[in-house]
């Protein structure tokens, strides 16, 4: 069952040529498994859409190889790849009815008219738009167009479905319900989805695995938990969720982790696999706000003392920004019901408690 759907090896993409060439993608390697919900995540301009367009056949590769179920497809035009795309702005054909839009791919494949009709209606049923079959795209709302685009791309039974920021044009409520719908449809059909987004929350909620990209390079590939809990570098730690990025000096390296010096204290932390650190080196560490505990009042001894700078009420949680005596600023996220937290005000002294199992030493 663990078949490789997409194998991207050493893919590099240049726009233009000679000294003016712009490198959009740099030496990208990863594999996407069959039946996986795989997300390409990154800020705009990171190359995620270019990569998707390469898989779809709309851009060619400067260097590297692209395989689909073992077959080299980099020289196939888009119409000969068993891959369909849900475009960001839907690209529904305005001169055709919804049913004809959904049946377009099947018609181009030369399927018999009865089959096209049956399959289109089946797809419209899947996205719950059967009663709109005779309408034109201009008569539908954004969310409905989105579902038609999905039905149209799924109708020819592609091996892989590409989704280019399909939810970005929808409002929040609709986006949230479409997330679940997309996940559900994928599970129902059992095909590979490659989803492009700049919304890290969306990526965490929907994906089986995520590839984080920045500046045309792959930063990390992993499950949402791996990406969130064990970010490999500063970019990933910062881009996914909220975090405190702090500078530390490495003291000791052991098999189980490392100890570092931070704000005059020694902290134990975990180290990612395949990541080399040396004692004495200055490195960065990611501390998620929810992994910092706050106790009102300054305790004696070895505890990490700080002063409250600001407090932001977020509903169930409260954000407390504190400054350490050495000048660093840390943001903690604690439940609003936690003892004494609601009464904190700027200038109050607090003691911070950092969970050593949850902090990660980062590569660059």
């Amino acid at each position, binding site marked *: 069952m663990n078949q490789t759907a997409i194998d991207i090896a050493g893919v590099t993409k240049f726009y233009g040529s000679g000294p003016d060439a712009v490198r959009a993608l740099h030496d990208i390697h990863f594999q996407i498994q069959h039946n996986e919900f795989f997300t390409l995540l990154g800020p705009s301009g990171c190359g995620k859409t270019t990569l998707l367009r390469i898989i*779809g*056949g*709309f851009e060619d590769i400067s260097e590297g190889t692209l395989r689909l179920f073992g077959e080299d497809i980099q020289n196939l*035009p*888009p*119409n*000969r790849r068993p*891959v*369909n*795309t849900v*475009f960001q*702005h839907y*690209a*529904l*054909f*305005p*001169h055709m009815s919804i049913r004809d839009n959904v049946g*377009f*791919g099947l018609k*181009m*494949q030369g399927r018999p008219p009865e089959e096209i009709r049956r399959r289109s209606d089946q797809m419209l049923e899947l996205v719950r738009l059967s009663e709109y079959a005779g309408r*034109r*795209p*201009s008569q539908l709302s954004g969310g409905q167009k989105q579902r038609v685009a999905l039905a*149209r*791309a799924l109708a*020819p039974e592609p091996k892989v479905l590409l989704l280019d920021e399909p939810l970005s044009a929808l409002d929040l409520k609709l986006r949230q319900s479409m997330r679940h719908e997309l996940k559900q449809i994928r599970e129902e059909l059992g095909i590979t989805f490659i989803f492009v987004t700049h919304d890290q929350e969306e990526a965490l909620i929907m994906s089986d695995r995520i590839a984080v990209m920045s500046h045309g390079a792959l930063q990390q590939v992993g499950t949402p938990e791996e990406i969130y809990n064990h970010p490999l570098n500063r970019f990933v730690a910062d881009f996914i969720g909220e975090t405190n990025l702090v500078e530390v000096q490495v003291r000791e390296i052991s098999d189980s982790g490392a100890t570092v010096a931070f704000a005059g204290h020694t902290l134990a932390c975990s180290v990612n696999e395949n990541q080399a650190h040396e004692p004495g080196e200055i490195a960065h560490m990611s501390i998620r706000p929810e992994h910092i505990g706050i106790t009102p009042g300054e305790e004696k001894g070895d505890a990490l003392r700080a002063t409250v700078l600001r407090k932001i009420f977020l509903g169930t949680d409260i954000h407390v920004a504190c400054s350490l005596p050495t000048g660093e600023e840390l943001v903690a996220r604690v439940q609003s019901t936690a003892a004494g937290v609601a009464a904190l005000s700027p200038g109050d002294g607090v003691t911070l408690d950092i969970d050593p199992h949850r902090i990660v030493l980062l590569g660059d």
Partner: protein
Amino acid sequence: MARKTDIRHYQGFLPMTVLCMVLLYGPLIIVMVYSFNDSLSITRWGGFSLRWYYDVFFGLEAPKFQKAAFNSFSIATMAAITSTTIAVAAAVGMIRGGQFRAKTASFALISLPLMVPEIVTAVATLIFFTTIGFTAGYATILVAHIVFCIPFAYLPIAARLEGIENIYEEAAMDLYASRAQAFFQVLMPLMLPGIISGFLLAFVISLDDFIITNFVKGAGIETLPTAIFGAVKQGIKPNIMAISTLLLLLSFVFVTLSWFAGRMGSKNP
């Protein structure tokens, strides 16, 4: 705010409008009115009559005008179809062909005939045809019309195509359409308002052309404009007004159709 910037509140707007309207449309209205004049005179009103319309279709000069009309319409139809086809190909090449060398120069070449004085084109075309020994009459007019209609057909088609994002073709290709299928099933239907608009414009331009036609037509063949000009040289008879009114009506219909075609589908791209 809108009230202050409304052009109707500018000083002198009304007299200026009236002056322009009278200068532009006054003569046309006079021609239309006098085409119904029951009198040989072209300036004195002698009562309402359709006799000059009858004269156009069944009078002494009717065979001459009918032949000229047939030439004009057949040439306009063929010239419009051919030039529109070429213009569609040119527009797709220019707008979808990506960046190629001499793109600006190509655009200038396509639209240059609009800027060159028609008399220059007429003389040059005549010299060219004579040099290569191409003096067939009907065919020379047709070829010349096809050529000068291309930029007129090109402009509305290119304008329409520029407004169509290429995601539609990409979506079609993604859904297994070949390049040709993507063009004929998706891009062309989306371009259709521009194509119709370009076709009608080319048709009217060809139908109406006098200068180039007069130079290249050779002896023994007339189109409507040259036939009318020939008739007017022997003195203006009211039947000329009737023909002019008919042509005016036709142009009006075509321009209106062209306008509606241009608006078609533009609301929901």
